[in-house]
């Protein structure tokens, strides 16, 4: 294990940011700390980096106890949401900073900076000031700067949070490829489940200062530990008291299927290629079902149409309040 966090608690006054958190992050992997804003994930990352200190608990990096080490002695690379570029230095100087602090020879530094700028596709901007770069370029520069010191772990705090949607997606793919090339243990914080599912090898779901679940994207999606994890990783609705995903419900216009729940369509809302149907069961439960446009048209769904709803085979559902997860029909 590359990073071992055990029993970490952090309070800001009465607010508990982290409540006895223990988590181990494996070497060489890309791990996402996922959770809602204010859930404590950034605090955890900053405690790993030494930028904040825990009230209690320990952090060890590569088997070495780092709990009381100052940030400059932990050999971690940290990338900030708002880039934290050194405004008065050129791009090349920014990247060289850590190497100059480590008193590397001029030739070595220049060579390494060149390699890194190549890696982040910024070679032609080496002599510009950060103010002349776009947000995405600044963040790539910040990444190169963090990688320059060959950190044992690379920590990214909402690295793409300040970028627009398109650049975000590009950088996300790029980070994944970069990680496959460089293989440094990487932890990034995000509140965007799509980002985590797409990029990470492993996801740690954090909510209200606690770890809700740790697992691969597939594990989390297919076997969420509880309502919260299931709800955070995608849309959910309830059918006959169980939490299900809206696209995991079969809609039929005749009552043939055993175990189906009768309902009346309340409204039909079209969003692009998808149709979102809200139906009320006889028990008064509001169920949301998503269908493709073609399927909805085929069923002639409209308000007041009588339908019968069944969870599709193999769908994940969770019983009310419980952590029992049952793939239906398995």
């Amino acid at each position, binding site marked *: 294990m590359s990073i071992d966090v055990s029993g970490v608690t952090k309070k800001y006054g009465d607010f508990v940011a982290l409540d006895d958190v223990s988590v181990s992050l494996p070497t060489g992997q890309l791990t996402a700390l996922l959770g809602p804003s204010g859930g404590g994930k950034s605090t955890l990352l900053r405690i790993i980096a*030494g930028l904040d200190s825990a009230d209690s608990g320990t952090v060890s990096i590569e088997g070495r106890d780092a709990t009381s080490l100052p*940030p400059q002695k932990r050999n*971690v690379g940290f990338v900030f949401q708002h880039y934290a570029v050194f405004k008065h230095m050129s791009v090349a100087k920014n990247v060289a900073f850590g190497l100059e*602090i*480590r008193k590397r020879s001029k030739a070595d530094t220049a060579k390494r900076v060149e390699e890194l700028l190549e890696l982040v596709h910024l070679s032609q901007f080496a002599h510009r000031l950060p103010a002349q770069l776009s947000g995405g370029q600044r963040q790539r520069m910040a990444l190169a700067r963090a990688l320059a010191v060959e950190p044992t772990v690379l920590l990214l705090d909402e690295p793409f949070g300040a970028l627009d949607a398109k650049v975000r997606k590009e950088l996300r793919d790029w980070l994944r490829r970069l990680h496959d090339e460089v293989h440094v243990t990487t932890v990034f914080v995000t509140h965007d489940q799509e980002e985590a599912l797409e990029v990470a090898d492993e996801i740690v779901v954090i909510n209200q200062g606690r770890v809700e679940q740790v697992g691969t994207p597939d594990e989390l999606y297919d076997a969420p530990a509880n309502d919260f994890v299931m709800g955070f990783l995608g849309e959910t609705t309830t059918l006959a008291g169980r939490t299900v995903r809206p696209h995991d419900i079969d809609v039929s216009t005749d009552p043939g299927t055993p175990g189906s729940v009768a309902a009346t369509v309340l409204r039909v809302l079209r969003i692009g290629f998808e149709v979102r149907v809200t139906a009320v069961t006889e028990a008064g439960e509001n169920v949301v079902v998503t269908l493709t446009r073609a399927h909805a048209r085929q069923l002639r769904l409209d308000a007041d149409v009588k339908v019968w709803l069944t969870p599709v085979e193999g769908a994940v559902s969770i019983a009310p309040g419980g952590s029992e997860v049952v793939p239906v029909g398995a």
Partner: protein
Amino acid sequence: MVELSTPTKWGLRLVAIGYVFFLVVWPLGVLVQRTFASGMTALSDALADPQVVGAVNLTLVVAFYAVVINLVFGVTISILLVRYEFPGKRLLSALIDLPLSVSPVVVGLAILLVYNGRDGLFGPTLEAADVQIIFSSFGMIMATCFVALPLVIREVVPTLHEIGEDQEQAARSLGANAPQTFLRITLPSIKWAVVYGVVLSLARSIGEFGAVKIVSGNITGRTQTATLLVEGKYQNFQQDTAYATSFLLILVSIACLVVVAVLRPSDHKK
């Protein structure tokens, strides 16, 4: 921008220009005119007067030390105020503004009370150790430091807030220790604010009158600064010397203004 009608626009301009003209430009213009009323003689006489030369020198020495001391403490206190939490922080912040609101004469009197050699709080002890504060450059530097104290801090604090802590934390995570972070990251970022604060402090220190007058004892040829000399000469009916010395003081202020004017735009461009 609000669109104003043409008469209003001209009216406002006239008021602004008139105000500055009658308050600043005209009086100073007359002073300069008096200085050169008899050609260069007043100025060259003044520059040949050892009292004037001594006073100007003393002013520069006192201002220099006061600015250096305020620079070091100003930057340190600014960082303390912005980057650290400690009990009494708000009180300290409020106290720093005090010199702006307290009359310099009162400042001089207060320093006199504490440090005078006869019945001051520390005075006799220091005097016994052969350190004389009152009626010497020490006291004058102290008084000048006091009145110019907020100028560096009030320039640097907002800039420190503005640049935030991110860059410093990034430097730390890249392996820089506290002094390295300060020299390579913080200082270059607040450079212009510091320069601006220094220029303001310098102008304020050179112009200081009330506090220095009380603390220095105004001893001609020993503890008389340029501003004190101007008053002294004027009251002794040596108006020409007073005008000439005033002119020298104006020159220093203009030099400061030029420095500020040159610096400010480059500050905004960043």
